[in-house]
């Protein structure tokens, strides 16, 4: 891959990740959901270096159907833990293209998320992996994996989206 192409690809992917983070920070959750393919998975493992989402529990392991339910829940007026919705800043950095071909891009990044809700601020740190697929509608997320640095800790309930 030549340096010039690499630069173009990096810009495209950076733009995509920033766009995604912006949708989350602005609470545009339906548009965020629209970034995922129909067969997508959204995964927050419970264990560091967890390889398997089926035989080990996960903080979140959603297929597209469960992710739709998760996003829809925010719309209900008595979604006690989600209304008001947390205010967030998703800071995306350290982006690295792991692999790329005509069908898609595998990209890793780091995420610092500041969350505020009900008089309380929490800070999250995570390594993130996106498997992006090129579709007729543009880049879409086929799989997103978020490894929270404190996934194995004793944690209060988590409602924000990463």
């Amino acid at each position: 891959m030549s340096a010039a192409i690499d630069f173009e690809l990096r810009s495209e992917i950076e733009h995509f990740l920033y766009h995604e983070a912006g949708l989350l920070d602005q609470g545009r959750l339906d548009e965020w959901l629209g970034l995922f393919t129909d067969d997508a998975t959204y995964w927050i493992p419970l264990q560091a270096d967890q390889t398997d989402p089926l035989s080990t529990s996960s903080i979140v392991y959603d297929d597209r159907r469960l992710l739709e339910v998760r996003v829809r829940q925010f719309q209900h007026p008595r979604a006690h833990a989600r209304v008001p919705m947390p205010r967030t800043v998703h800071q995306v950095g350290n982006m690295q293209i792991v692999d790329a071909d005509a069908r898609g891009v595998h990209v890793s990044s780091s995420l610092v998320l500041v969350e505020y809700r009900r008089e309380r601020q929490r800070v999250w740190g995570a390594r993130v992996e996106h498997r992006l697929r090129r579709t007729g509608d543009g880049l879409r997320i086929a799989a997103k994996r978020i490894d929270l640095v404190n996934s194995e800790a004793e944690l209060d309930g988590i409602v924000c989206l990463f």
Partner: protein
Amino acid sequence: MNVQAINELVQADRVHRAVYTDPPLFELELDRIFGRAWLLLGHESQVRRAGDFFTTRMGRESVIVTRHRDGTVRVLVNRCAHRGARVCEAAEGNATELVCAYHGWTYDTAGCLVGLPLPGGYDRPAGESVGGGLARAARVDSYRGFLFASLAERGPTLVEFLGPLRASFDDFVERAPDGEVEVAGGVFKHVYQGNWKLVLENHNDTVHPAFVHASSIWAARRQPAVESGAYAEIGVRQMLQNGAPWEVWESTGLWTAGYGHSWMADYHDDRRLVAALDHPAFTEYRAALERRLGRDGAARVLGELRWNSIVYPNCSFMSQFRQLRIVHPIAVDRTVVHAYSFKLKGAPERMFHDTIAFSNVVNGTASPVLTDDLEVYERTQEGLSAQRSDWVFLGRGHGHDVPDGAGVLRGGSGTSEIHIRNQLAAWLEYMTAES
């Protein structure tokens, strides 16, 4: 607080808010309840081989559960006999010795002091001065592979303590084709800023789902049908089931027994929830169960429909769905819950995948269901700190309990608050007994 004052806190159909908010009472609970009762610590599969250990808590006390080389399970207080540092930081592992980080005092897996630096520097052998080593739980026992310990020398035997609740553990184990279960699949650890009783009072509360879980019920109902066998099926079904009509909850069985225990049954069945009965994995599972128990025996086991069983004061489990939660009181207004999944030995792997999918949706730290429970525990704790009103009302179903066998009462309906009144009766018994 003297006995008479404590007695006044718990009345027939109401309880004083101090029981949830008063720090001195909490300290007394650690002594009189968590310092006396049998506490469920884990399962034998966590300490299968000699040297295996895991750490947990008894009340607020850190303990190490070990398999000693003689095959017995030991429960050691995680505090060096020398200057008091914790001697074990790992959540689990295998070791022949536990070495204190501070001055190298060394213990075997029975807690006996086996080494220390400069042993000649004491006027009598150091081991004698510190009682031989690490402090231990006074009593350790197990039932069907589940490990219990008590910090009190005296008290009921484990069998007496569990009483009719043993049937829930039997159900848990009998569901395994090989007659054995094992801890697997990771541990969820969630926290809420509220008293430890709130979670135990919630698990058999059948009126709360329609309100606390209204949003996940609503979101699941709007989800187009999920195809049978798909990953999302279990999660969506469980969210929908929380929205069952009142007739279902009213006809659910709710039983209580001595020492604060209770269980809920005749609510879910496998048709409503887990593996669709026509799924090949379930057919394979049933056949494996029939090989051990025969056709009638397997039908009897699968016909047992127990939902939550509460082992007061520190555990709540679901035998039918292989989930077990241990409640750790940290402060009067802070509680940690560890949630474990179990594998049925001899069952197809797909059954365990269903268990994990179920665990994610009911016990996951970011679950659409659990997060609303945690939110409401915290709001309850905040509300109870208000000083203008002292009483918590627990009158639902009061006066309608039905005797159902020795020492067992059944709620007049499945929405009775009988299970909470029963927990508080046990609370009062522990708290007012002098020893």
